[in-house]
């Protein structure tokens, strides 16, 4: 990896320590941001937003969150689906006004939160739950922990299925997002403009990426990585494992909660918890970060994009071009995803991120590779 380049001088410490020290990278980042914020909203239609862009943005947040926990802190979690469900249900409760009951009487009811703050509260509540389920990580490690997080997955899904308070006693047991707006622009509900939903999610995605990037290259990120690389050694050089692991769980769950809230409120509109946030979702997000690259911010985005695109591409090729039945394509997708996981783990354990990095290096040196 090239951190510096000839002819690219920095004259202040701030310049020296910025996220993208290479000028070319920086400009590329600005251009991508510009296109995403200014150009895309004007050209997208309903299909693009709902089948590609929204899932990509939302899964990217979840992948960022899980990558902090698994890729940076080394604590494998299979509870992502459950934590996304916490975000979704917390968002729903705050959107519709949290009601507290005591002894069969309504004690008080919070006012309905704005959708923006509801999503944030979804993240906050998930962070709290995540810390609770992260507590065992202090005693158990590796795949023992992975199985322990399965407890979170199944328990949370069961909880949201059984306790009627969470879905406001609706007859169907589903939660569906009421119409809410931000500055007079509809964000949730059936009649949302595609560009509004897109921009709303984009704000959260960009903010998450910036926060995650800066956390992981700062003190807390270094502590997480020390724990990941060797927890005992980290403890001996003065990293508090309790704080490091729990902050990782907290930050990670916060992002996952936000993505769950967006997934429910903006993307789907109505969810049934077992269907939308089942164990499959946990694996999907885990696969995203394995394929994208463990311990990298770009990798989270690449993995999310890849696994969102793959089914769509397969569907286009298989069903629309070849005219195969949809169930065959669905099964082929399982085979391909499974194969890809194995191939990536064998051939490129650092995922798409590493491929991208190598490609960049080769291109920099081209055509004189020495």
């Amino acid at each position: 990896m090239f951190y510096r380049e000839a002819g690219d001088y920095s004259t202040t410490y701030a310049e020296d320590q910025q996220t993208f020290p290479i000028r070319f990278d920086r400009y590329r980042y600005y251009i991508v941001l510009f296109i995403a914020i200014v150009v895309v909203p004007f050209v997208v239609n309903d299909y693009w937003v709902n089948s590609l862009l929204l899932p990509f943005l939302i899964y990217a947040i979840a992948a960022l969150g899980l990558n902090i926990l698994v890729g940076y802190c080394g604590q494998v979690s299979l509870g992502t689906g459950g934590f996304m469900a916490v975000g979704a249900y917390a968002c729903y409760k705050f959107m519709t006004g949290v009601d507290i009951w005591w002894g069969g009487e309504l004690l008080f009811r919070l006012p309905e939160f704005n959708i923006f703050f509801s999503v944030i509260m979804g993240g906050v509540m998930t962070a709290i739950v995540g810390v609770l389920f992260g507590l065992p990580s202090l005693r158990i490690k590796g795949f023992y922990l992975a199985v322990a997080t399965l407890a979170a997955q199944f328990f949370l899904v069961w909880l949201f299925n059984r306790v009627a308070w969470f879905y406001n006693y609706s007859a169907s047991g589903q939660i569906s997002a009421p119409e809410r707006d931000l500055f007079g622009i509809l964000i949730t509900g059936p009649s949302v403009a595609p560009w509004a939903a897109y921009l709303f999610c984009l704000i959260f995605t960009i903010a998450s990426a910036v926060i995650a990037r800066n956390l992981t290259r700062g003190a807390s990120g270094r502590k997480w990585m020390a724990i990941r690389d060797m927890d005992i050694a980290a403890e001996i050089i003065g990293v508090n494992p309790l704080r490091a692991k729990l902050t990782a769980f907290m930050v990670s769950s916060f992002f996952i909660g936000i993505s769950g809230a967006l997934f429910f409120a903006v993307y789907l509109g109505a969810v049934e918890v077992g269907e939308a946030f089942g164990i499959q979702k946990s694996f999907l997000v885990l696969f995203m970060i394995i394929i994208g690259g463990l311990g990298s911010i770009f990798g989270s985005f690449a993995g999310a994009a890849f696994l969102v695109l793959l089914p769509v591409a397969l569907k286009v090729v298989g069903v629309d071009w070849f005219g195969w039945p949809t169930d065959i394509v669905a099964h082929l997708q399982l085979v391909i995803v499974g194969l890809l996981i194995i191939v990536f783990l064998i051939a490129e354990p650092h995922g798409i991120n590493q491929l991208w990095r190598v490609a960049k290096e080769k291109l920099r040196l081209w055509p004189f590779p020495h």
Partner: protein
Amino acid sequence: MNEQLVYTFEVIVNGLMAGVLYALVALGFVLIYKASGIFNYAQGVMALFAAMTLVGIQNGQVPFAHLINAIFGTDVHKFGWSVHSFLAILFTVAVMVLLAWMVQRFVFRHLVGQEPIILFMATIGLAYFLEGVADLMWGSELKPLDVCMAQGNCLPQGMNGWLDNTTYDAWGTGVFIDNLDIVATIVAAILVIGLIVFAQYTKQGRAMRAVADDHQAALSVGVSLNFIWVLVWSLAGFVALVAGIMWGAKSGVQFSLSLIALKALPVLMLGGFTSIPGAIVGGLIIGVGEKLFEFLIGAPFLGGATENWFAYMLALLFLVFRPQGLFGEKIIERV
């Protein structure tokens, strides 16, 4: 006898039977984990794959018929014969051995020396792959599995009736026991005894234990790691087949079969990853525990369906106090 008591007994018996099946799946995990340090998430899918293959061979289905039809526009479904159960089981064992060899040759040989968590994730990938292949090969619809021992009709005529009568109210106590459950228990017991005898008294079994103990030491005295790993994966495939037959005979061969693999995880944590008796005891504890909890606390007070999470919560609580499980080796950390 008191009705409540009878119900409780039936719940316990049911739990024991479910526990036997969990234990069978967990057994496959333990075999592979002991010999290669790989935590094989795909064990449950292997059970599904084995059961589907068995049904497919029995009914003379053409493998990949659906896919072939879609690609070439043909219309093939069946060869038009059906295979006797016993032969079909032999064929399925052969398929599982082939699968074991392929897994070893194409996946784990390339991952030797990687961290355990990487191997674990590779097996998750393997699980997805196998599930997709099984569905493509044999179709994903629910299939009834009809092996003679499941029906009890390979016993002599009078014996079957006698068994039915005896188990209908279990020697006059009023507790109902399913024939299938008894068969499952006996098969599981035979399997466990067979595995223990194999591991203790045969040459290959000793080699297997040597590999489990120390890879490099085993290599240095001339044990072929590759062969042992293929052997272990084949054994696990065989155990998966048995589990698949039991579960399939009970509730048909369908996707939910692979979900029992997830239930086997808490079983392992309870019993310890490296202990065969641990897998059995853990399976029984989880089986009885979740059924009893559902019956006594879950259904009356918590709105039911607590079976979904009880096992994991139990394992989670248990781990906090005893991270190595009931029978596992003590975890020692070295720097």
